[in-house]
């Protein structure tokens, strides 16, 4: 059982990479995707991203993610097709035309978003959030407070999703129908849904803050972490590889 963005234990190469390499690598990978508009290169990036997902056995969440990203990028793609005429005209519209160029541009958008998103999401599935923050504090000298805020935020996503589910069940049992259509009716759902969620989140954050406080949160420094995050040869290779990809993206 694991939820959205929740760590899945494993021993694959991806799991064993240095957390910093994973995080930076994913970011550089995404940047590379946005630097290039070469469809062939982007397709290669997508294949590479999928290979990474397969190598750590994360195909199932990845496919779920791809569906979500596809829905979003399709929206962008449709706008692109309709409003950025380029290439040979295929269909004439009152305000312009749909051209071969528009279709390619739209396809590029879809592939680019998919390729850029996968490694970022993958990072969360193969890295413990605590490792990510600890490494950020140790290696990158990020102040612990900020690193912790980040990890807590990620940590709370499944918690709040779960709360949300409980609240929806409770209200459904009272007869509130969540499959309402129409804006006015949807607004009516704010009260039964958002008020309990808000109250429980405020309660939770409050008690989390107190719990952190009594455990000496303020005393924690960079030196407090026991675990070391040394770079192995493989980490360096991986980092160089993504940087190389970025260089290729810039050249192309």
């Amino acid at each position, binding site marked *: 059982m694991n939820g959205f963005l929740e760590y899945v234990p494993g021993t694959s190469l991806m799991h064993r990479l240095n957390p910093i390499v994973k995080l930076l690598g994913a970011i550089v990978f995404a940047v590379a995707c946005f630097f290039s508009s070469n469809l062939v290169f982007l397709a290669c990036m997508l294949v590479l991203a999928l290979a990474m997902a397969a190598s750590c056995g994360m195909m199932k969440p990845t496919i779920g993610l791809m569906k979500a990203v596809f829905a979003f990028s399709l929206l962008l793609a449709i706008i692109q097709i309709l409003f950025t005429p380029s290439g040979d005209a295929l269909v004439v519209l009152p305000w312009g035309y749909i051209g071969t160029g528009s279709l390619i541009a739209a396809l590029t958008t879809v592939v680019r978003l998919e390729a850029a998103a996968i490694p970022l999401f993958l990072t969360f599935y193969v890295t413990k959030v605590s490792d990510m923050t600890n490494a950020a504090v140790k290696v990158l000298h990020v102040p612990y407070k900020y690193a912790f805020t980040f990890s807590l935020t990620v940590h709370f996503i499944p918690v709040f999703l779960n*709360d949300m589910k*409980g*609240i929806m*069940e*409770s*209200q*459904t*049992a*009272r*007869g*509130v*129908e969540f499959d309402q259509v129409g804006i006015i009716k949807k607004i009516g759902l704010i*009260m*039964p*849904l958002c*008020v*309990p969620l808000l*109250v*429980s989140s405020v*309660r939770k954050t409050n008690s989390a803050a107190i719990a952190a406080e009594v455990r000496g949160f303020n005393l924690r420094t960079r030196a407090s972490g026991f675990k070391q995050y040394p770079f192995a040869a493989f980490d360096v290779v991986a980092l160089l590889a993504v940087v190389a990809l970025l260089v290729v993206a810039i050249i192309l």
Partner: protein
Amino acid sequence: MTIEFRDVHASYNADIPILKGVSFTVEDGEFVAFVGTNGAGKSTTMRLVNGLLKPESGEVLVDGVPTTQLKTSELARRVGFLFQNPDNQICCNTVREELLFSFRALGALDAEAERRVDEIIAEFAFNPDDDPFLLNRGTRQLLALASTIVVAPPVIVLDEPTTGLDFRECVKVMDIIRHLHENGTTVIMVCHDMEVVADFAERVIVMSDGCVVDQGPTFEVLRNRHTLKAANLVPPQIVDISLGLNMMRPDLEGTLVATANTLNEMELAIATAVGKPEAASSVPTYAPTAPGAEDALVEGGAR
């Protein structure tokens, strides 16, 4: 209104089956308790009763109609549901609004509803203008209970209504439930407190690992240590004590202290042994041994 489960299989995701063929019937006006260890599938069963979860195979019939054919609001009108966490349903600024919201959710807000709400407020001795979020845990639970029963559903499902309450609040909640039951409401309750089960339920259904392993009148289920043990449960102390007394008979120079075939008889057994041993001779002489009764003294002593 009857609730019937026919060989129900259910799960949250297809890989892990949770309920593995559950069948039972709750008759109109009954008070049934579900017991079982953590994760036995009691809450899942309750979710099926009011259609929050639909069966994968088999049927859940509410008043003869499968839950798959009923809309959320139609089901909500038939089956009231009290979850363990009252904070999930409290969403209004005052106690009165909260109670009125129950009617609004069902689309039944009218003058009659307002009258009902005032009645309930008086019955529960609430302050109508209190902020629900500032009430203490027990009162919030009572408010959640009140907003469930204010719309007078013919069936009420309670998932651990007394967990986390102190004894006094627990008795308060259970008294209200008993009162409802006496007025004809069908009550289905999940409860970990065996004493509460022994005191209130007419019938007990024991669940273990997604299956019903035993069901029957409360005293018969609770005195059967073999099935309870199989489900990893311990009977309430009153059963232990009276079964223990049953076992001690030979020590009392062969005098029969009492039988322990019903909860009332168990109480009598204790009273007789402790208070007035001379009454013991008036108790019938036949006393079948409860299954596994020999464990009662051992476990009771260890406690």
